[in-house]
């Protein structure tokens, strides 16, 4: 069982348990009149071994936020702190899993070598490296396919390779950017259960971005709801559903339905508001000076 930790958008929780902290992060692309404000001001924290899902309306800058957290993009303002240290480049304690598994795996390498790639520059013995690769592939159930190429596998299996690669890297925190958005519903359920299982097995913290509300509630200890861009945190909702979770039993719980509805309403309202806002902006834009 994963320890249930007190959540609450960066409110309490003891400092020692806090793994990741996002402090007043904003991101603006471009400058001057053509500037796009992707993220306005986002702050929240993730505790050690916590599973946090970030949901928001589509196009709300979830991916941008995750890339900032992962050290791939520099935030315009604010700080990302991992165990109190500022993140300026991708840290060794983080691993990132993208939505596009087909594009993040190397088609010229076997499954084994894909998982091995990030371990090659770590100071490990050859045996240790191979053991990590085999253990990770075992955990995602791909041992028989270790010498295949990714393109010989189905979409769901390819994403499992990407997850195994992240696990073998032994990160403290796993960042996942809509990892199950491009697989069919059945596979998606299997992958959700798989990630819950490896989370236990590898005692790992997960920050999981998704646009799927059911998924966010089903998987997490806490759901962070974002506003439409420029993004802010709308709400942080603790998910007190029991573990282990089950695709049928958990989703039949009244608490599940209640939480799901709560998140849904928050996002729906958000979309209505942003729609009105958009209409207003368009009106002013058409009225405004055109060259």
């Amino acid at each position, binding site marked *: 069982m994963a320890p249930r930790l007190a959540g609450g958008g960066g409110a309490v929780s003891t400092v020692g348990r806090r793994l990741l902290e996002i402090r007043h992060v904003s991101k603006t692309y471009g400058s001057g009149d053509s500037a796009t404000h992707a993220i306005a001001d986002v702050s929240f924290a993730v505790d050690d071994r916590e599973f946090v899902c970030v949901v928001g309306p589509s196009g709300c800058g979830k991916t941008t936020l995750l*890339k900032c957290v*992962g*050290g*791939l993009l520099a935030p315009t303002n604010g700080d990302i702190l991992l165990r109190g240290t500022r993140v300026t480049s*991708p840290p*060794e304690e*983080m*691993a*990132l899993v*993208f939505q*596009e598994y087909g*594009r*993040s795996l*190397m*088609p*010229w*390498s076997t499954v084994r070598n894909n998982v091995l*790639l*990030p371990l*090659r*520059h770590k100071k490990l013995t050859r045996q240790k490296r191979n053991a990590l690769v085999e253990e990770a592939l075992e955990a995602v159930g791909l041992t028989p396919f270790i010498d295949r*190429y990714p*393109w*010989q596998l189905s979409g769901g299996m390819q994403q499992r390779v990407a997850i195994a*690669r992240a696990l073998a*890297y032994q990160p403290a925190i796993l960042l996942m950017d809509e990892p199950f958005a491009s697989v069919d519903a059945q596979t998606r359920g299997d992958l959700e259960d798989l990630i819950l299982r490896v989370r236990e097995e590898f005692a790992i913290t997960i920050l999981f971005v998704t646009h799927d509300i059911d998924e966010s509630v089903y998987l997490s200890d806490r759901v962070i709801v974002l506003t439409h861009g420029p993004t802010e945190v709308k709400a942080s909702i603790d998910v007190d559903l029991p573990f282990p979770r089950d695709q049928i039993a958990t989703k039949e719980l009244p608490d599940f339905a209640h939480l799901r509805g709560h998140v849904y309403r928050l996002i729906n309202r958000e979309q209505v508001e942003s729609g009105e806002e958009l209409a207003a902006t368009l009106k002013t834009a058409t009225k405004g000076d055109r060259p």
Partner: protein
Amino acid sequence: MAAIAAEIAVPLLILAAWQAWTVHANDPLFPRLSTILVQFKEMWLFSQFHLHVVPSLIRIGAGFTLAVIIGLIIGIPLGLSRWGRLLAMPHIEWWRAMPPPALLPISILLLHSIGDRQKISFIAFFCLFPILLNTIDGVRGIDPTLIETTRSYGVGGFERIRRVVLPAALPQIFAGMRTSLSLAVIMMVLTEYFSSTSGVGYVLLISKNTFQLAPMWAAIVLIGVLGYLLNVLLILVERRVLAWHRGWRAAAAQ
């Protein structure tokens, strides 16, 4: 089997037509096919092989290999660096637009050589451009998701180039190499026309100057055969090295 038979049938028909026509026309400019083939056998199988064919092959091989190595060494960094490209592309385009014969005389002066050094350098120089441009393009075309993946896992430097950048660009680099290889044959013949004492191009020119048309045609046939076989060889290497690419594309097409 049927495919190979079809591939061979058409050239055989053309050769038969040539033989029939040359016998009928009896034109000294177009010796009979049978005469050319006898000449071919006498010269190239194998009495003059080491004297003229081997030097030509060495020049092609060395010039082409040099072009591949330099193309990768320059092309990969340029593919990765926007500033590098901004600075280098005008120069690359300028030299690429230069017709090779325009540089042949000066290459002899600059390299103080009419031997293999000048010939190999000349071949390498003009073979460089297709490989270089394809390398730059191939490296630029790498999927940004893959680059971000390697960045997030801290895979950098030589490891990144060896395991990610080079393999990703390799299909396009091979396309450049195929163009370059045919250029190498052209450049080989061209350099051997000019201040040379060996090579297939040299034999071709000398035969023409002494009105020995059968040896000249035999040299022409040999150059065609060499170009064809070299291309086949490169395709075989490509199939082996890029086996993953064919599988990947087939899987993507499904």
